């Protein structure tokens, strides 16, 4: 795959805050890259720096091999959809969408044809002559999207473009967006904090933390093999379970597993049920486990008194774990289960290996 855009050792400081800290990333031609991360990790700053709205403190951004980091925004050939849409309130929907074409000095006929074409695709043809302040949230979002898509820029930057929509519209808009991106072969960089969006849209997901990329890969990779306990805790509908223990003699090791990796045919683990709630079609059981001791060929542990537990060595280690099972348990009941797979992390939270039983 061709590299479309490349960040080389990019730094962005606001006074003393390091928002982007030695940021490196390659974006491939035609890919849908989702930038995911908790708020305040520099997601939006990354887009603004890319678009040229804010200057870099240091480093380079290469577009098709050429350094664009010193170019003003109008010379970068990048389209961006802002989170609040930033529609020009003094213009109609048509004028909004036509604005970038007008700036590119396209002919009147071509502008009209292109705007109507994209409006047809995004189903906003009937509101083109309305002032944008009169449109509904969903229509505004489409106009903002149309204004970006009407151009043919090198790359599209989207800053949580669906976050202001209600849940039902959002799901529809999401699938349309993905379809358009694939059909036209555009390169999308999409910022969100919504994991289901990342899961359904992304070719690759980059997880941002402290101004750098903590992990990049497909959403499934992030779910199944988080490189650190932090990613395991962050990615997924429910955080990964972490329990402290020993791994083949190494103390301070952390065992991580997802609530769905439970294997009821096995009984290597024993726990005390603390809470049992009905989820969509499975029961979520919270139970307390003792310390894990991993020997050759797997690990097992019994529930033990809290007094006997070793102190957690990592912030993400909790005294109880949550698992998904198919039958209901009473509070205080003993539950036995095994794991179909688990990840082993060292005391700093870095992945050592993934074990499948």
């Amino acid at each position, binding site marked *: 795959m061709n590299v479309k855009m490349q960040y080389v050792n990019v730094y962005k400081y606001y006074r003393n805050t390091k928002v982007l800290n030695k940021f490196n990333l390659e974006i491939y031609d035609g890919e849908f890259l989702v930038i995911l991360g908790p708020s305040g990790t520099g997601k939006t700053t990354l887009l*603004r720096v890319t*678009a*040229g*709205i804010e200057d870099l403190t240091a480093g380079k951004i290469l577009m098709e091999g050429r350094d664009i980091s010193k170019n*003003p*925004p*109008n010379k*970068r050939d*990048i*389209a*961006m959809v*802002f989170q*609040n849409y*930033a529609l*020009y*309130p*003094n213009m109609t929907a048509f004028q909004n969408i036509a*604005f*970038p074409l007008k*700036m*590119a000095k396209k002919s009147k006929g071509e502008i009209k044809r292109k705007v109507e074409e994209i409006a047809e695709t995004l189903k906003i043809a009937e509101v083109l002559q309305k002032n944008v*302040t009169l449109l509904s949230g969903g229509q505004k979002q489409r106009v903002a999207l149309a*204004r970006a898509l009407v*151009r043919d820029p090198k790359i599209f930057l989207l800053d949580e473009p669906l976050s202001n929509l209600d849940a039902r519209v959002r799901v529809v808009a999401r699938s349309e967006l993905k379809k358009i991106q694939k059909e036209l072969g555009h390169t999308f960089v999409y910022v969100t904090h919504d994991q289901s969006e990342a899961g359904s849209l992304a070719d690759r997901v980059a997880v941002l933390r402290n101004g750098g990329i903590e992990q990049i890969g497909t959403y499934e990779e992030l779910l199944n093999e988080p490189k650190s306990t932090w990613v395991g805790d962050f990615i997924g509908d429910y955080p990964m379970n972490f329990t402290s223990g020993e791994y083949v003699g190494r103390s301070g090791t952390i065992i991580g597993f997802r609530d769905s990796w439970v294997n009821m045919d096995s009984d290597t683990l024993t726990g005390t049920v603390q809470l049992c709630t009905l989820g969509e079609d499975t029961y979520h059981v919270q139970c307390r486990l003792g310390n894990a001791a991993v020997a050759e060929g797997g690990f097992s542990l019994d529930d033990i008194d809290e007094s006997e537990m070793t102190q957690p060595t990592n912030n993400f280690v909790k005294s109880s774990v949550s698992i998904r099972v198919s039958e209901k348990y009473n509070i205080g009941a003993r539950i036995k289960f095994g794991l179909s797979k688990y990840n082993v992390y060292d005391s700093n939270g870095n992945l050592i290996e993934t074990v499948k039983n």
Partner: protein
Amino acid sequence: MPSKTSPGIYVAVLILAVIFFYPLWVLIIIAFVPTKYTFGVMYPIQLPLIITLQNVINSFREVDLVGPMIRSLEVAFIVGLLALGLGVPAGYGIAKLTARISNKLIAFLFIINMMPGLVIAIPISLYFYSLHLTNTVLGVALAQELVVLPLTVFIIMGGFRSLPRDLENQARVDGASLGSTFVRVLIPLIRVPILVAFILSWMTSWDEFTYAFIVAPIVPTHSTFPVTLYNYVSRNLPLQSATFALIATVPIIIMVAVFQKYLKGQYLSGGLVG
């Protein structure tokens, strides 16, 4: 929100209206009622029962009203347009600064307005004398600019600040240069603050006295209308003064009537109704 206004409010408004309107009423009576019913009697008539245009015609015949009027209009328009020419870029720049710095800058700008006009007018007139700006319309306008510019910058800054910052960024990303971002996106969006700033500058300059009196003193062929009016009053020509004063009110009344919907508190503070 339906609310019941007590009749007392209407009474209060009526009393206030009478107090504010009475001086204008006196002007109207003096200007349009034959002098034998006003200056000729001990208790002047209070209702325009007999109306004549003779006073106005005589006033125009006896003194030059048109010249000072035109000069005042020139001053008002020069001040208004210059205030926008300087105030729009300044307001844009100051709006981009953090509030901590910009508030200090604005306070600094208003220092001029805190000083008595004469304190500033006298050194200025000396300076203008060597620049050959005394007794000129441009001189009066430049001096008056000092008074209106801080307020103009303040209003325009408020206008820019009320715009979402991302609109400008979006225009730039959409391929607009700095100039076309300004002309096509920003200026149309702050047209109301611009209009308000212009009207306020215009109205305060139209009847400005202190600077006009010192920069363009009592030379009938060069003074603006407030100075000329002062001249007639001081020479005890009440009829001409009344006529002139009444005519001078007309442009203000027209301005306020046309633009009164913009002259509300939120526009003066620079707010923008989205």
